[in-house]
């Protein structure tokens, strides 16, 4: 099969996972004005919790979808808790909030190492999606196609949520002008908790359904966080379309970079970021410079 086509499918798959990760990151950034540095950890914690359910607790095994839902809910609750108990105590002090998320990410990384050990854990691909799908003369791995479909569904659902519902309108108002949103009676601080939990849950979900492709290992958080940062620098903060386009771009650059220049894969990410920073510092779809 054609190498380029395989690479392209892998890139879109990876871009889909990145979108799930960075959509929440971008929304939290847009609303709370802070880069949530625990986002990589949430991805990793979600993957670890999910894989624990998949491999089974006391012999009781779950299928990956149920495990993903449980992991998502757990991590969303953890995220809401962290926002309520810690970030809430530092209102308006964005620097302190960023530093708290940084400290939390170290604690999470070490706790995961303590609980799950240092060896990578591979997540079994669900049996119903193990094979290949042939479309015409082309053959695709089924699980990767499934991830693409899931990411597309989530993108559509998030767009509907933000564009068509009352909650979405409130979030958009908060992103555009938090002070004015407060004046017209929107409880912005409640939105903070909701958006933080939503972002945490999405990151955890991406972590577990990405498990069969990426495996779960210590340091996964540090691999994913810079990618989410680059996506948001490229796409612009608080913009769903921005994180979508940014994710697909980073997915392509990262995968093609790894195939063609394996030693410099991380470095080639730097080039589009450089161009965007020089020509359009607010990002491709962002409205204001962070």
């Amino acid at each position, binding site marked *: 099969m054609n190498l380029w086509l395989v690479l392209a499918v892998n890139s879109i798959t990876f871009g889909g996972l990145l979108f799930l990760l960075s959509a929440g990151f971008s929304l939290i950034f847009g609303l709370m004005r802070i880069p949530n540095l625990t986002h990589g950890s949430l991805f990793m914690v979600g993957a670890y919790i999910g894989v624990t359910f998949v491999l089974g607790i006391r012999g009781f095994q779950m299928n990956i979808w149920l495990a993903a839902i449980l992991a998502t809910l757990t991590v969303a609750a953890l995220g809401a808790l962290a926002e309520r108990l810690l970030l809430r*105590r*530092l209102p308006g002090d964005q620097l302190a909030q960023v530093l708290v998320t940084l400290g939390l990410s170290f604690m999470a990384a070490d706790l995961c190492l303590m609980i799950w050990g240092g060896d990578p854990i591979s997540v079994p691909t669900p049996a119903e999606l193990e094979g290949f799908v042939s479309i015409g003369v082309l053959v695709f791995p089924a699980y990767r196609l499934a991830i693409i479909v899931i990411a597309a569904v989530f993108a559509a659902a998030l767009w509907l949520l933000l564009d068509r519902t009352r909650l979405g309108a409130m979030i958009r108002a908060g992103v555009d002008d938090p002070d004015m949103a407060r004046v017209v009676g929107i409880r912005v601080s409640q939105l903070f908790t909701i958006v933080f939990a939503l972002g945490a849950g999405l990151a955890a979900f991406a972590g577990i359904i990405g498990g069969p492709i990426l495996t779960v290992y210590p340091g996964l958080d*540090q691999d994913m966080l810079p990618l989410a940062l680059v996506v948001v620098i490229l796409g612009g903060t608080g913009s769903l379309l921005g994180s979508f386009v940014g994710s697909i771009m980073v997915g392509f650059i990262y995968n093609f970079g790894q195939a063609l220049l394996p030693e410099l894969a991380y470095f080639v990410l*730097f080039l589009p970021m450089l161009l965007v920073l020089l020509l359009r510092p607010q990002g491709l779809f962002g409205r204001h410079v962070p």
Partner: protein
Amino acid sequence: MTTRILALVAALALLGTVPYWVPGIYYTNVASQILFYAIFALGLNVLAGYAGLVSLGHAGLFGVTAYATGYMLQLGFGHPIAILIALLISMISMAIYAALSLRATGIGFIMITLALGEILWGLAYRWISLTGGDNGLNLKTRPEPFGYSLSDVNTFYYATLIIFLFSLATMTVFVRSPFGAALMGTRDQPRRMNALGYHVWAIRFYACMFSGLLTSVSAILFVYYTQFISPQTLALTASAEVLLMVISGGAGTLLGPIVGAGLVVVVKTVVSGFIERWNFLLGTIFVAIVILMPEGLVPGTVRLWRLAWRKFAGSPRAMTRDAEAKP
């Protein structure tokens, strides 16, 4: 004023005699570590404290210098040339780093520096033909300036001390200079500074270069101290560690970063003897300091001391001094 001079003389005497009053060479080595990390923290403090620009990628720059020194030595250059080339490479990297990250300020600056730091880490980790990947680079020898071999623990300590005192003196001059005042102006009121005719961007850029210079100096000391450099040195945890030194001691103060460096190095050395979970403790201290004592230990202790003084002594002189200090 006289108490200040007395304290200074006492501190110098203490620092100058470290190899004679600590219990063994192990502790002299810890003292050397504190001193070169203090230079690193002073360097970051120029940005995080005086310019209001929190960089989370400084370990990346630190690593660039360390790798450049190691690589030049591997190519067979002598120590002075290797150090000079490493400094040159670091200054060029710093200029690029500054030009990119100064596209933003505040949170945006944090985000860009974090991404740049991680990219440098990724390079060190993956570009195996240049950096040796996870195996890192080894340095075979330490230099011998003026016939003193730095392989000796005490000589290394004194060399580090001299460079540290020189860096501290430079910092003191910098803080009191018109440039230092202008930099603090761009931190507090960038728009007014702009209106007054200052070139805010250029001031910040020069501050970045000064910070980068101190960072590279400490990195050269570091790489000669450990005689080894691996990607771990560039990791986000390393950037956070030095930021913790600055913040825990007190950002924007002269002595704070030095106290912070001492605290972090001692805790890290002592604790890692007992438990492996240094990162967990690092994270906990970080969260605790940010929430409980956001201004840092040095200003925080001064504040508590004044408060206690007023409560217990209750002398009117202390009250007026406190009232004076307030605004």
